[in-house]
């Protein structure tokens, strides 16, 4: 069993899984299920429980020039977290996490929306740029209960509340209130393992600008962005309100047979309803999002100490936006990612493992504004090589990974007839961003060591994306300190 768990953990660590909806819509990356095999809370038991108690502090810094126009110039996130995993009576297992976050988004252009990373340009903003400061708490609990000798059911509950302020007039304030429920079941019998997980989430964001009097030179231009061009502009309003309500459903399945074949699939559908105006609501359209992925791994023992891992994965995202009053689709977005590769693991001892991975991927992006008649399509090929190592000596361990990824963009197909100022200022820059060849260095390390009766862990992750033949780059670094009981 332990071997299987380790194996699955390696699989989970080796290959990026479909981002959680919290990561996608909220830019929150820590959750208890992420620490479990296949992100399935029903796999929480005494063998998979990572520790009893832990305190941690993490710091994220991201900055650079190679970025989308609405990405802040710099991000500084501080997170303090306490988490625990405990076995209760009757085999019930409990996991809990409570985190406080303080986040700075510096030099953010126009948008009042807290997060804008789903590639669907349905936003609200004004003509200023400035700094945002966010304070929030999120908590996450898991109950995992055995219903038979070989099966467990579980429920994962995630809740977040945060508030974000912009320092620049008209000082928009964004309040988010988010809930995510994940019921799950897992079956484990005779080298066969099956996990099923459901998902329901509701992420609400209320944006409100400061009330003000109409003073000269203090009139911002408000923008309702709905597509690739022609935002709706309004002037001299004394206050603006927007509610974005994202409701989503999803499901996931994972299978592992004889420690040889592992398959995983996820599907998720979300819809965002957007309304402006508070007491006198005016619908502003809605967008929907469908994403799915699947991944297969085949593990083969090729020599005594060597194991081959052949893998293939596909991830598809599709979004569409609808006009608020006309029954018409006005925006369409699709991304696809196909990847295949080979990993060779070398295990000189039961405590050490070295693994080299090479993969090739094809991905593409299509965005169409079917209201205005604009579109762009960008294919690309990605070659990736990496090395991972895990070394253990008693209670001390060191893991590190290093990878290089080269993204070779293909020919751009663009239709931009009749485009106007917003397209020239924003969408063209987005196309340049998506269309650049890039080279990425990805590095990570984690050291754990005992001290008195505790275990301390220091980990860091670094990613540097450089646009080829330019001086533009974007780096993302995370440092995490943990005290584990």
């Amino acid at each position: 069993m332990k071997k299987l768990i380790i194996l699955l953990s390696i699989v989970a660590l080796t290959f990026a899984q479909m981002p959680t909806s919290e990561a996608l819509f909220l830019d929150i990356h820590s959750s208890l299920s992420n620490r479990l095999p296949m992100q399935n809370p029903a796999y929480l038991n005494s063998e998979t429980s990572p520790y009893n108690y832990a305190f941690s502090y993490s710091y994220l810094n991201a900055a650079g020039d190679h970025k989308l126009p609405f990405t802040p110039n710099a991000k500084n996130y501080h997170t303090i977290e306490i988490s625990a995993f405990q076995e209760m009576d009757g085999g019930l297992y409990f996991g809990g996490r409570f985190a406080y976050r303080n986040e700075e988004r510096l030099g953010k252009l126009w948008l009042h929306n807290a997060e804008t990373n789903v590639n669907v340009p349905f936003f609200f903003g004004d003509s200023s740029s400035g700094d945002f400061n966010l304070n929030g708490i999120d908590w996450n609990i898991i109950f995992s209960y055995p219903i038979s000798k070989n099966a467990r059911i579980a429920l994962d509950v995630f809740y977040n509340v945060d508030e974000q302020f912009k320092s620049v007039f008209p000082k928009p304030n964004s309040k988010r209130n988010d809930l995510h429920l994940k019921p799950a079941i897992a079956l484990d019998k005779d080298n066969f393992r099956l996990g099923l997980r459901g998902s329901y989430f509701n992420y609400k964001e209320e944006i409100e600008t400061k009330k003000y009097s109409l003073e000269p030179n203090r009139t911002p231009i408000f923008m309702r962005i709905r597509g690739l061009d022609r935002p709706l502009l309004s002037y001299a309003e004394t206050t603006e309100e927007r509610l974005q309500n994202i409701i989503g459903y999803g499901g996931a399945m994972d299978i592992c047979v004889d420690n040889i074949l592992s398959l995983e699939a996820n599907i998720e559908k979300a819809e965002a309803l957007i309304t402006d105006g508070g007491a006198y609501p005016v619908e502003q359209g809605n967008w929907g999002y469908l994403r799915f992925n699947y991944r297969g791994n085949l593990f083969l023992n090729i020599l005594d100490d060597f194991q081959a891992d052949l893998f293939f994965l596909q991830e598809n995202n599709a979004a569409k936006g609808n006009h608020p009053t006309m029954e018409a689709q006005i925006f369409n977005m699709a991304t696809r990612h196909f990847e295949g590769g080979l990993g060779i693991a070398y295990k000189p001892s039961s405590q050490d493992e070295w693994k080299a991975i090479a993969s090739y991927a094809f991905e593409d992006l299509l965005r169409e504004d079917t209201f205005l008649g604009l579109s762009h399509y960008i294919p690309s090929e990605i070659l990736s090589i990496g090395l991972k190592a895990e070394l253990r000596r008693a209670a001390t361990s060191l893991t590190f990974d290093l990878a290089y990824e080269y993204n070779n963009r293909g020919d751009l197909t663009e239709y931009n007839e009749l485009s106007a100022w917003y397209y020239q200022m924003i969408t063209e820059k987005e196309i340049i961003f998506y269309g650049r060849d890039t080279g990425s260095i990805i590095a990570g390390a984690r050291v754990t060591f005992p001290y008195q009766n505790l275990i301390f862990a220091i980990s860091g992750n670094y990613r540097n994306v450089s646009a080829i033949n330019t001086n533009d780059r974007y780096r993302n670094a995370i440092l995490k300190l943990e005290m584990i009981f």
Partner: protein
Amino acid sequence: MKKYILLISLIFTLLIILIPTSCKLDINEPSSLRFSVELTVVDTSLSDSDSLVALAEIIMQSITYGDKFETVTNEEGKAVIHNLLPDSYNILASGNRLEGTDIILINGQMQDTSLYIDNNDTLNLKLIAQTSKSSALLISEIYYSGAKSIIPQYFHDQFTEIYNNSNQTLYLDSLLIADVESGFINDSLIHATHACMFPGTGNDYPIQPGEFIIIAQDAIDHSIYPVNTVDLTEANFEYYLADKGDVDNPNAANMLNIHHKYGNDFLYSVFSNAIVIMDVKNPYEYGYDEFNRILLHKNAVIDGVEYRDNPSELDMKRLDASIDAGLAGGIPSYSSQSIERYIDRYEDGRMILMDNNNSSLDFHVNKPPTPGWVEEATQ
């Protein structure tokens, strides 16, 4: 078991090999909701066969996106505009025809009209126009914006300029100047907050062909510090409210107050308003509305001009197409700018000002204001 593993390995290897450049999509031109409009301007005063107005100037403006389309109807009276987005539009049409020796002005407007047809089709649109005649007496310039000075919101330098566009001597006696309240564009009556009458009993105040006269709010010199705008000491007339402590220049004849709802003077809004000059027999004939605004019949209007800080807001208009089918303005408040008519042509050395009864076409923005003369400007 080994056979299965071999088979699965083969499938995986094939998948990896086939990932694939062949995944690339063929992308076609995206669809859009854009459509076309075929517009005909209909002059209802004529029989069907002649009713379509040829060579009419068309201005079509999207209210949400601000897109402005300008075209001219062809000889068959049709104009086609392509690549319109679904939206509410304001549409103006201005043409003319000869009736004997008279030029009949044909003006039409559609306000806040929602337009869309699916399948990128062509929408057929009829614009019903009204006819009117060019006026002999014109409002040639209005200075309403006020001045930026150390005195905040200075507007006492406002003036109206009137011009005799005909070749005959006219008389201003007992003519009326009034402002026009919004919300009554389709009524036969104008609702006026202020109305003032020229003094005289019939032939006391002639205006010669090609002559300007100035009606000042306060006929004093506003060109000196701290206002630095116009000198109105030579104004011919002045709005004067004796009981409001108003300025009185004895050299300027005082306009007679017919109705004054509020304020210390006949103040023109610095944002939006419409000013009309009227020939009214009895200004009190139709009484007042429930908000104490005097009612005056539109048939008595000689000339009218409407202005607005945002001249694309044609859906907010106060005057119908028979008086003014367009909107002048687009001037920031307190910017010392006026609106003034274009010069159309000269006849025997006499200047003829442009008068299509459409201030969008007839007026331009003027800085500085020019009381008593007209700046040469090109359209």
